[in-house]
């Protein structure tokens, strides 16, 4: 069910807009589709090991003899029977020895203690961008609270040039729900403080870990004015040495219609590509240097140029990744 759901969300989402979402889709599809190509006879393959009468497993056994056969069942007569299991009891014998209310509280505490729920702050990027013209800054961070399956996430990303109004300030709040071992659903809202005018969007997305360790996400955003956008992201961490990591990353925005208020044209609107080389000795605070390239696309680029802005820019970045 979970993979189906993630496909449902993904399929209409960015199949045409971005290769990364497609990658994610393959990922969840792979999780289900492999089944069909599977030769189920292999399940039977276990059986010979169990049923095969074996010569005595000598106490001293070379591991290369592959224990699969050697240890399990020495003789056929050693096979367990098939007696039915007893019913699952509902009583607690400790209640007859200790005060039942104390035991009940203790059971509750034991279970409660194992329920993981916590807060974390992860700053993926916090950086200074040096560019021809004007230097600026950029960030991408999230804080979350919750457990393994459900989390509340507050995420923010943005960028701007010094001495000017920030170009983008986005703050998203969403519920993150684990769909399957690798992918999560996102449901919530995003508010853009910049660009002007401010906009609030309903957000639905998925994020996850695709095969080959690609971190991917895809979101569909519908604003309070009715305009619809999509965003896809992908990143990959390549360890060069145990402490040096290079992380290429891409982010692309897509508009399903013209949004003149935001100077956005229908189609691909924006592409960011970056690569950052991180000194990952300390996981809590890892400095990096890198390059960041950003480009407005299609109609949006034409609108920018018409307004006298650059449609693209490249900057050298220096920053930190942090985890608390």
């Amino acid at each position, binding site marked *: 069910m979970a993979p189906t759901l993630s496909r449902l969300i993904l399929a209409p989402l960015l199949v045409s807009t971005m290769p990364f979402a497609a990658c994610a889709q393959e990922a969840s599809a792979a999780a289900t589709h492999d089944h069909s190509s599977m030769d189920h006879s292999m399940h039977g*393959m276990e059986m010979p090991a169990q049923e095969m009468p074996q010569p005595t497993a000598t106490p001293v056994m070379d591991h290369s003899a592959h224990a699969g056969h050697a240890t399990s069942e020495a003789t056929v007569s050693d096979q367990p029977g098939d007696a039915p299991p007893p019913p*699952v009891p509902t009583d607690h014998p400790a209640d007859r020895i200790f005060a039942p209310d104390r035991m009940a509280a203790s059971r509750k505490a034991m279970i409660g203690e194992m329920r993981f729920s916590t807060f974390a702050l992860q700053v993926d990027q916090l950086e200074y961008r040096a560019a021809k013209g004007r230097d600026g800054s950029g960030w991408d961070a999230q804080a979350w609270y919750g457990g393994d399956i459900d989390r509340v996430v507050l995420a923010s990303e943005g960028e701007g040039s010094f001495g000017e109004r920030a170009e983008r300030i986005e703050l998203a709040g969403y519920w993150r729900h684990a769909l399957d071992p690798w992918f999560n659903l996102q449901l919530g809202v995003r508010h853009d403080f910049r660009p002007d005018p401010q906009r609030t969007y309903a957000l639905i997305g998925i994020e996850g870990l695709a095969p080959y360790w690609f971190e991917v996400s895809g979101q569909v955003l519908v604003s309070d004015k009715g305009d619809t956008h999509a965003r896809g992201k992908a990143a990959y961490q390549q360890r060069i040495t145990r402490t040096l990591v290079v992380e290429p990353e891409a982010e692309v925005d897509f508009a399903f219609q013209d949004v003149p208020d935001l100077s956005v044209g229908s189609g691909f609107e924006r592409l960011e590509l970056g690569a950052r080389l991180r000194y990952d000795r300390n996981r809590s605070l890892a400095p990096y240097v890198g390059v960041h390239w950003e480009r407005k696309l299609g109609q949006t680029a034409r609108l920018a140029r018409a307004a006298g802005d650059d449609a693209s820019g490249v900057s050298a970045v220096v920053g930190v990744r942090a985890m608390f």
Partner: protein
Amino acid sequence: MSKFDPAAAPIPRRRLLAMGGALAGSLGVAGLFPAWARSGTAGIAHASPHATAGSGVLSGAAIALRIGESHFATGGRSSHAVTVNGTLPAPLLRLREGQTVRIAVTNTLAEQTSIHWHGLLVPFHMDGVPGVSFPGIDPGETFTYEFPLTHSGTFWYHSHSGMQEAVGLYGPIVIDPAGPDPLACEREHVLVLSDWSPIHPHEQMRRLKMMSGYFNRQKQDLAGLLAGKDQSLADRLAWGQMRMDATDISDVTGTTYSFLVNGHGTAENWTGLFAPGERVRLRVINASSMTNFNFRIPGLPLKVVAADGNPVQPVETDEVQIAIAETYDFIVEPGEVESYAIVAEALDRSGQVRATLARRMGLAAAVPEIRRRPVLTMRDMGMDMSGMDMGQDGEIDLSKPANESMAGHSMKMRDPAVAPTVKMGPGVATLSPMPVDRLADRPTGLEDVDHRVLTYAELRARDPNPDPRVPSRQIDVHLTANMERYMWSMDGTAMSENPDPIPFRLGERVRVNLVNDTMMPHPIHLHGHFFELVSGEPGNRPRKHTVNVLPGGKVSFDLTADGEGDWAFHCHMLLHMHAGMMRVVTVRRDGEPEERHSGHEGHQGHMGAGEG
């Protein structure tokens, strides 16, 4: 080198203890170590045990333990600790089979505590697991455990509350046999192996939930690929395709841990003394919270004489992987050599600790370098087909149809059909498609070392197994995980989801098949029982309380459910248990579920000050 070195003579034990204390005192650590654990100890007396003031050995019918806050420092790291009677490790309990012991445990912490007697067969309500067997020991309270000692051997005790065993609450138990000890040696040493981190286990858990590889500093990298190390490109791609990390072997590692022998790091060089010609019995306990150790004494063969407290037919080997919560007794004969390095190396080779066996203080043998960290294989994924293809004689016949069907096979990593009892969800990333019995495998990372390595299959019980019945039924228990999300469970369900217990009838004989669907070894511990590993001919199968299930493999054990009551059953990697790899096992009399616990009133724990 003098044969007449007085420090090496076995007789003036008191003087030795005092000297060891003085030496330790000069290092400024004496306060925290009980004498038996101090460097330079002459060992524990093998003859009739009796408590000696200040020795840190507690004996007799009435024992008092006080759990409190302390600080502990080693290897430049210092942090808060929870200790017993102010020491780390906790005092050695030296008891005798057949006696009944009363142990009053006083909690001076601000939080609840408990002590579990690991491996001792006790009435369930004395087992010390809050929420399962008793309510726990509240702050200010004294709880008196009282139980008969029905067997002998090397065991240990630790907290079962608040992850306190990771911050110091563990200690050894030695129970001497009621009669003469056939394993008696001229000298005995107790070695408690442990791991120590200044990062509290709750914080470790939080970081692992943020990033499951947080403490792994040994992942494969591009430099290694170019240098031809580790996996080939094709293998890396294949593993990457499955989102599996061949170096994900330990999750909390030497990045944050100091590894300790009796509370001593390598620099502190814990030293146990011997005299030439002596046979020395080492009682080795892995009291770590998260570290499986490779234990060896280079140049000195280890004769394994007991595992998990139970005597085995002696088997000589050179290295033993001691999983968390296991205990092994070895007999060594150091001969004329002056000193040996005792090396306990973390499974993932992220660190090690060296101690010394020497004829006198101040000697130290060369410390071997940490060996290359292992890389997991398809066998660790439960995907190894070679077991199917090879007979005992190593016959490989590639023309067999079975091989053809396997060739180029894309094994599915999450086929519910291979484990119908597992609840599939985000917490189950993989199921081993073809788990093979790995009892005769060398443990992880020791597959190709060029000396002898103990495998479980080499162990045979010295005494015949007490219950020769063939099990009347069998159950499968899957050890499941999503290692990326750092979720751990049994049969896909975490303990925090309050799953049904695993029920047994009192006295029934059941085979339990543990299937490891993860890529990490899991030391699985059942409280209140010994079980027999299904290895070799029935009759003298090794009896244990903890078994390390290798990645992608399976282990079967036979159990006589003779401990009436409720028992914990869990992975002894503390964080795995805490994250959910745990169950309650119930043992009930058939038919009359309600009636018969009145007899227990007599053994009831005595609540002292602080209650009510």
